[in-house]
């Protein structure tokens, strides 16, 4: 299993960089991974809104939310979402949020 070192810590990830031990997730992980997902600079409050939403949703329902739901609940549109996470919500946002790799719909 590949490993990745971020901000001095070692994480087990899969080939796509998705965390393989979800309980190891922490904010530094997200912060440190951001640049790999084409996010320039530090994560903003808006990034965190999305990330926290994703984590809450995942904790509550065991799945990643559908895109429409993210946009509705957070009152942002797709364009904005891709501005925040240029590699898209499924790849970028979920990865940073430490969700299991989506096979569904995000």
């Amino acid at each position, binding site marked *: 299993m590949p490993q990745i070192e971020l901000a001095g810590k070692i994480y087990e990830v899969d*080939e*796509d960089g*998705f965390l393989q031990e979800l309980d190891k997730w922490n904010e530094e992980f997200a912060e440190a991974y951001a640049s790999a997902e*084409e996010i320039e600079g530090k994560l903003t409050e808006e990034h965190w809104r999305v990330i926290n939403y994703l984590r809450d949703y995942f904790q509550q329902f065991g*799945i990643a939310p*559908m*895109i*429409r739901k993210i*946009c509705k609940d957070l009152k942002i549109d*797709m364009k904005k979402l*891709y501005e925040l996470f*240029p*590699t*898209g*919500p*499924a*790849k970028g946002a979920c990865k940073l949020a430490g969700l299991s*790799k*989506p*096979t*569904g*719909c*995000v």
Partner: protein
Amino acid sequence: MERSDTPLLDELEKGQWPSFVKDMKEAARKNPMAKDLLKQLELSYKDKIGHWKHGGIVGVKGYGSGVIGRYSDRPDLFPHVQAFHTMRVNHPSGWFYKTETLRKLCDIWDKHGSGLTNMHGSTGDAILLGTTTEHLQPCFNDLSDAGFDLGGSGSALRTPSACVGPARCEWACVDSLDLCYHLTMAYQDQMHRPMFPYKFKIKISACANDCVAAIARSDLSIIGTWKDAIRINADEVRAYAENINIQKEVCDLCPTRCMEWDGNKLKIYDEDCTRCMHCINVMPKALRPGKETGASILVGGKAPIVKGALLSWVVVPFMKLEPPYDELKDLIERIQDWWDEFGKSRERLGELIQRLGMRVFLKAVGLPAVPQMVKAPRTNPYVFFWPEDLKKEEK
């Protein structure tokens, strides 16, 4: 003679049909990815099992789709296919190409990928088969510069496709190519940035022969047809009579038996004709579709997973289809909105209609119920009444 690394695959170089193994070997001669692919495939032939890991989410900037991630489960043996992602390149409508365009594609792919392709994938894309994660963005950049774009993947609109239609076919009742291109351009966002509950496919056949199998494999199937009478060239009918048995090969096979042939004149009772195309197919010089053309719109087609395969269902018997196709786009958007609102994750449109009922769907998208929508009315007596159907009594 050297002992081959791929004794099993070598067997598939034999025989008269063109061999994919030859192509793989060709590519393998100059490309290490192709070489490892060949060797991994040989292992699969030996083991009778695939050697790819599950899934893979990779992509290019700004897009959520268009790339299928793939990783070998034996990177130890086949390091060059450790990552081996597919890029789906949106084809030109009707799969028409100038060679210069194709050559550009080949050059880009030799530069960035394995040199292997599928011409085409079964949704219709030109499939560039296998490259590394690092090459994805540069490859996309080169593609874009050369005028190409990616097709759909994931829970997005998938690359629409269309039969050859008016470009070559005398039976085209709608301009399948133009419509396909138009929709593809109109819905770039839906294609590249997945936002639906699941995939959504559009296919367009310009007549009921359905040469892109639209009814079987698209959520929205557009099938050309006409409203008026079949055009008959009586002389050509008689000419056919010299070579074929019109009664047996045409009239007797007409599903509605609405034709009469007296050995000299062919009479069609057009009000009974269901425009199946058979008679026209058999006598293309003598018979032509009518002039008042348009299309039937059907929805819900899909493969078996999860609730079983579906053929699309007629929801609009007839729609005129001319640029800018506003009526159609309106309908598509109403349909997608409803689906997006009520669909569960990984629930195709057809499955949602199945779950909530056609009547709910029709009401939501504002389509009137017509008998053309059904093979037959319901047999079970479990009939719902809308509140407005009921006489309101004072309680």
